[in-house]
């Protein structure tokens, strides 16, 4: 897939687009969280991503993404700060001190990020978390689809959205929503919703 070089600038655009989508859907994300959590997911992520885009810098991919991850950790608080932060930190570690990634390296970095989330949050499939949106997307990136890398990215974003939608029927077993038990069923998970935006931003900017 020689058409699939992902550059430093590309990754920058990705994070900027993610920040834009978060800001745009901030209220909606917080409302989802209000239904089954404490109503701050949109505020948390928006505060964090605004800080990230305001300080984007670095000569290599690992440098830039690590900084972004640290920034997120330092500004978000709540569950999503360490989780998304760890995602980016592990992504950076997998990517290494390079200025470009190919599709395989990108998928590997995404897998490393997801593994970081699991290591930190111990989420299992169908716990009704961001994991349920990210896992099918990462798998799609790893397997690829017929066509261009852009097609794979779009397929991954679609998979994330399908995963996000599937959280509606799940009973939460992690995070604040788990206190609701049965009553968490019927509500879409806010973290899965923001995770789907991360993948949609990738499809828009990296394809």
């Amino acid at each position, binding site marked *: 897939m020689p058409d699939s070089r992902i550059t430093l600038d590309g990754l920058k655009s990705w994070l900027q687009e993610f920040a834009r989508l978060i800001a745009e859907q901030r209220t909606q994300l917080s409302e989802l969280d209000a239904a089954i959590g404490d109503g701050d997911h949109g505020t948390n992520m928006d505060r964090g991503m605004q800080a990230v885009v305001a300080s984007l810098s670095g000569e290599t991919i690992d440098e830039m993404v690590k900084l972004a991850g640290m920034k997120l950790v*330092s500004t978000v*608080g709540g*569950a999503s*700060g*360490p989780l998304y932060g760890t995602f980016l930190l592990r992504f950076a570690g997998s990517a290494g001190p390079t200025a470009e990634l190919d599709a395989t390296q990108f998928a590997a970095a995404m897998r490393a990020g997801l593994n970081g989330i699991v290591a930190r949050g111990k989420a299992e499939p169908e716990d009704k978390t961001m994991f349920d949106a990210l896992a099918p997307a990462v798998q799609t990136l790893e397997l690829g689809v017929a066509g261009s890398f852009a097609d794979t990215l779009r397929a991954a974003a679609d998979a994330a959205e399908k995963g996000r939608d599937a959280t509606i029927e799940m009973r939460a077993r992690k995070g604040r929503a788990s*206190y609701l038990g049965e009553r968490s069923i019927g509500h879409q998970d806010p973290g899965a919703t923001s995770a789907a935006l991360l993948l949609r931003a990738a499809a828009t900017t990296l394809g």
Partner: protein
Amino acid sequence: MKKLINDPADVVAEALVGVESAHPDLRVDHANKVVYRRDASRPGKVGLISGGGSGHEPLHAGYVGFGMLDAACCGEVFTSPVPDQMLAATKTVDGGAGVLHIVKNYTGDVLNFEMAAELAAAETGVEIVSVVTDDDVAVQDSTWTAGRRGVGVTVLLEKIAGAAAEAGRPLKEVADVAREVNANGRSMGIALTSCTVPANGKPTFELGEAEMEVGVGIHGEPGRSRQPLAPARDLAHVLVDPILEDLPFRSGDGAIAFVNGLGGTPLIELYLMYGEVAKILAGHGVTPVRSLVGPYITSLDMAGCSVTLLKVTDELLRLWDAPVNTPALRWGV
């Protein structure tokens, strides 16, 4: 929303200005929103830090001082603090004997403290042990949940572990004492009204004029069930019975009995509740060897109360009775 505040966004920062003016024994790092004992760190003493979302005052900043915490990390209202805060606090209070992190069991708190511990260990090699409180019996089925929430026991644990640290005990022992407190304490709360988060400007949930939320969390999380409000003598059973079911006391056991106000309930009602709780305990042969009655871990302006029972040994009681000098708990000094 009627509150004594300026801009809702500044509540925590401005309350810390007041804490600093009111308590010369404390030092406030305003950039990091960390409250310190003025004399932290003390060489050879295990450092104790805690923290969490704000809105539960006096927890945690009100428990900073001799014989209790060395530092409290204050998050935004009901939002866990970020690792930078605990990292700064850990480095500052470390007196060479290691640092205990006291963390209430909420995913956000646990993860942020965890990252802070990793960062601190990486940066300075300081030894850190984390003890997580999870005493809220309202959350039942823990394989299906993020686990029980940390509530009232946190106050008792900070006092008792603080005394152990002040006595010069090593980190491992201080942590063991802390875990023993958590293992032997249980809590249950009820809300008569919702709290109102300043940034939201409206009540977190709605309750009818004759309703209560049984098993409410200190952030206004829903509890076990919504029930009709009942006389205090019945409410005492609603609170105490699930605790006794979960933590079997034997007749003759001693307990610290803690009736906590959630912020909007006045002391006269808390004492009345304490009387009802004491009667139930007497019926089970449990002696409340020490009591604590008042708003010690609150949920902003929520009306309601929680009951915490801690089964104590002579040793735990000695540590409870040891001198403490903080804004919210003080005796023996």
